[in-house]
């Protein structure tokens, strides 16, 4: 069943890719503008320049995004778990989370840059600041959603807190946490692009903006495609992990 589903999913992805290429090609023929080159010219360009010019930028971006997501999970999940399990922690932290959640964090960028400099730290902090809220709230709600009977069974067995976390809270909420991560990924890629347009000479964001400044549209499109592909691959990895972990659902 799962295999059939994923097959149709792949077919869907292939159809939409073909469709995008057809529309792109049609636009490029119709408009005949340098800003819309042919998709095949872009593809050939990627093959020619990837190893020499793009790989290093891709690695930097990948490192930042994986680091940002990992840090958000490492900090956000335990915090959400504590808020979900201990009502007292929730009462103290929830107002704080709800108050800071709607603040447009990207507007804090100047402050972050002043405090942490132009380097890697402020890029990482920006990503974490923006996606951690989704992860905290999802983890908290996942724990709160676990039926009381399940806790009762464990309590009557005399399980200690560590055992309750290990046997119930972590397995029960892992799938939800991954769903939140998958959703946060899209946001994280946008922030990544934005933060890479300043204070660095590496990263896909820098590569794309640099190509744009040099009016090298082929390189610019190559960058956009590689950045999208990176997002797609990360998305797929989380998707597969989620399927694997939540096979009991």
């Amino acid at each position: 069943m799962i295999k059939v589903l994923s097959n149709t999913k792949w077919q869907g992805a292939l159809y939409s890719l073909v469709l995008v290429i057809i529309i792109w090609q049609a636009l490029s023929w119709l408009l005949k503008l340098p800003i819309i080159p042919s998709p095949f010219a872009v593809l050939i360009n990627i093959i020619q320049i990837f190893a020499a010019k793009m790989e290093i930028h891709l690695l930097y971006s990948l490192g930042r995004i994986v680091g940002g997501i990992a840090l958000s999970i490492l900090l956000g999940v335990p915090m959400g778990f504590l808020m979900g399990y201990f009502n007292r922690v929730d009462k103290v932290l929830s107002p704080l989370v709800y108050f800071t959640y709607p603040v447009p964090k990207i507007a804090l960028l100047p402050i972050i840059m002043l405090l942490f400099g132009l380097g890697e730290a402020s890029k990482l902090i920006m990503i974490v600041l923006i996606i951690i809220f989704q992860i905290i709230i999802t983890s908290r709600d996942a724990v709160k959603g676990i039926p009381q009977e399940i806790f009762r069974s464990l309590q009557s067995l005399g399980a200690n807190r560590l055992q309750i976390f290990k046997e119930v809270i972590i397995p029960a909420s892992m799938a939800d946490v991954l769903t939140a991560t998958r959703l946060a990924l899209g946001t994280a890629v946008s922030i990544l692009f934005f933060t890479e347009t300043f204070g660095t000479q590496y990263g896909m964001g820098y590569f794309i903006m640099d190509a744009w400044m040099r009016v090298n549209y082929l390189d610019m499109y190559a960058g956009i495609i590689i950045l999208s592909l990176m997002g797609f691959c990360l998305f797929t990895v989380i998707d597969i992990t989620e399927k694997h972990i939540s096979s009991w659902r």
Partner: protein
Amino acid sequence: MIEIKDLVVKYRRKNEETLALDKININIGTGDIYTFIGPSGCGKSTLLHVLSGILRDYTGSVRIDGRAIDPKAQRIGLILQNYGLLPWKNVYHNTMLGVKIKNDQQVMDDYGRYILQQLGIESLLDRYPKELSGGQQQRVAIARAFILKPDLLLMDEPFSALDAISREELQDLFLKIWKQNNVTTAFITHSVDEALYLGSKIVVFSPAPGRILEVVNNPCFQLDNLRFRDEYYDMCMNLRKILDKG
């Protein structure tokens, strides 16, 4: 031996205080099986929550073999109406949960395999709870409780969500395994039939706040072909009368 003396439980909701259990006094001998029957909302489940150590806010004394209730020290098997299985664990790991937490035992021993076989679930070990029928899930919950080798078995309407055929099948199966182990058991039910079939003594509760109306000796317990006998019908009438009076 379970000794319950002057047990009173109150629920506080906002400024209101509701009396759930009022002065419960009862002793359950070691190796006995008592069924508790009464109208819904009479506090039967509350009593079970006290015995299982989930509810600690009560007055009076509750002692198991002379010691206060402590789920960490005692081995308490709890079987709930909605099974209480962990949906993310397969049958094997669900049945192992009790001994894993109590003894840090990781692998099923011979006794565990024997129980699984008795309950007819040894071929379902890889399945997850959602892939099982209600009856199968309840077998898993029963297996988990017995594999634990409990000092005390607490059952809260475990068969009431099942269809009539699986219910009677599981009642028989439960009695068979129970006889081999003779665990002290408190069994809550709302069915007169079940109370008679499974209890050596039957404790009848009043409507809320829960008080014990009567503790009835059950001469029908463990009689063959019980449901076809006159004694069974007499006892049924008797119990219904006590329940109606309350």
